[in-house]
């Protein structure tokens, strides 16, 4: 076997192994996600102080989720916001929970395919939340976290709050038995 052919066979071997490994990893991840039961989903939700979340979100939106008039909105001080949200780590927990909320909508979609509208919306909301968190992580690396935090964090929390309202609305509309547990967890 000449050197060139040796490189070619080695490259093809690595290519195939990597491709099969990626396919196997994502296939099993997808399978786990689609087969997750209700208890498993609920257990994945990180415990977050919902009163704090509500307080931060309700500073921007009202109880029904409607944005407040600009003069009443965003009254919380940056220090208060940091404490209520739990800093960047608190936002990372919201980010992780937003993924579980999507799975919860997909859980309903197994029986009611029409719930895809909510699931898709939640998916895009979660991307938005992730975008806010990433902006803050970038700001933290540049040493600008204190300046950027109030704006991005409050919008991220409001997005998360509206996501929880969407999921609760979905379970309420379907009159699912899990609603009580979900209300407790969120």
């Amino acid at each position, binding site marked *: 076997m000449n050197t060139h052919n040796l490189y070619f066979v080695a490259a093809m071997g690595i290519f195939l192994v990597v491709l099969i490994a990626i396919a196997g990893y994502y296939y099993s991840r997808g399978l786990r996600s689609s087969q997750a039961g209700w208890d498993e989903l609920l257990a994945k939700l990180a415990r977050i102080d919902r009163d704090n979340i509500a307080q931060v979100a309700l500073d921007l939106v009202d109880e029904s989720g409607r944005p407040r008039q600009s003069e009443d909105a965003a009254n919380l001080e940056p220090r208060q916001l940091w404490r209520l949200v739990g800093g960047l780590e608190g936002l990372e927990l919201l980010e992780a929970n937003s993924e579980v909320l999507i799975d919860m909508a997909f859980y309903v979609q197994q029986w009611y395919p029409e719930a895809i509208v909510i699931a898709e919306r939640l998916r895009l909301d979660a991307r938005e939340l992730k975008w806010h968190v990433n902006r803050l992580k970038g700001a933290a690396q540049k040493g600008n976290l204190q300046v950027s935090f109030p704006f991005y964090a409050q919008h991220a929390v409001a997005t998360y709050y509206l996501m929880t309202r969407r999921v609760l*609305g979905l379970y309420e509309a379907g009159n699912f038995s899990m609603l009580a547990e979900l209300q407790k967890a969120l």
Partner: protein
Amino acid sequence: MHLTDLDLLFWAAGFLAHLGLLFVLWYRRRAAAFPLFTALITLGSAQTIILYFVFHYGTKRSYFYTYWSLTMIDTMLQLGVVYEISSRVFRPLDVWAQDVRSSFVWLMGLSVSVALGLSLLASPPAHTWMHAFTYKGNLFAAALMSELLVAMLALAVSVRLPWRGHTAAVAKGLGAYSLVTVLIETGHSYFGGSRESPIFVFFSHVRMAAYLCCVSYWIIALWPDEWAGRTMTREMREKLFTLHARLEYDLNHLRSRNKL
């Protein structure tokens, strides 16, 4: 070129399997949902008949050109099926999901680059440039198809778009077959040789056996209907969509404030 009993058996089995799959696609009304996949399978059936007659009544040269012309159409249709699968996975509400477009284009670019790099690295022991080009082209197509299908699977799982039902069955079958063809094309590019050489015949048989398994899987997987789910009551739908519309409006308001 001499055909053995095993060659003829594979030809006949492949033709019958294609007919069986076409029957499932039309009788069970899957063809409307997967027009490009149906076209690919139709081409597969036609290919067997056309090549059979060209082989018996044509010249070696005409067989060569017919074979590679059909293979090129087949590759184009396979890429079309990849598009068909992605349009079903990444368009959950009949429009492309906004967040996957850039990742999809990036992954396509990466797949083409890697496939091109691998095919350039190959140096098949071919006597003519056309043979070398054929080996490299086949390797490129096989690598690209397998990469695209794996990339689509990874992207769908990452962005949490479900990959299920008949779409998943078509993708899984094509993905598994593409991985086998990468292995076979690597062998072809390494060993080279004429169509009569034992190694070429061996690889052809492996490819046909893998393809037969794949078609049989499609026949079984596409026969039953997809789970249709329950229909929401009018009250449920109204509640849900009122809430959805309101929150949608509110979020847009928040976003517009975000831009200020």
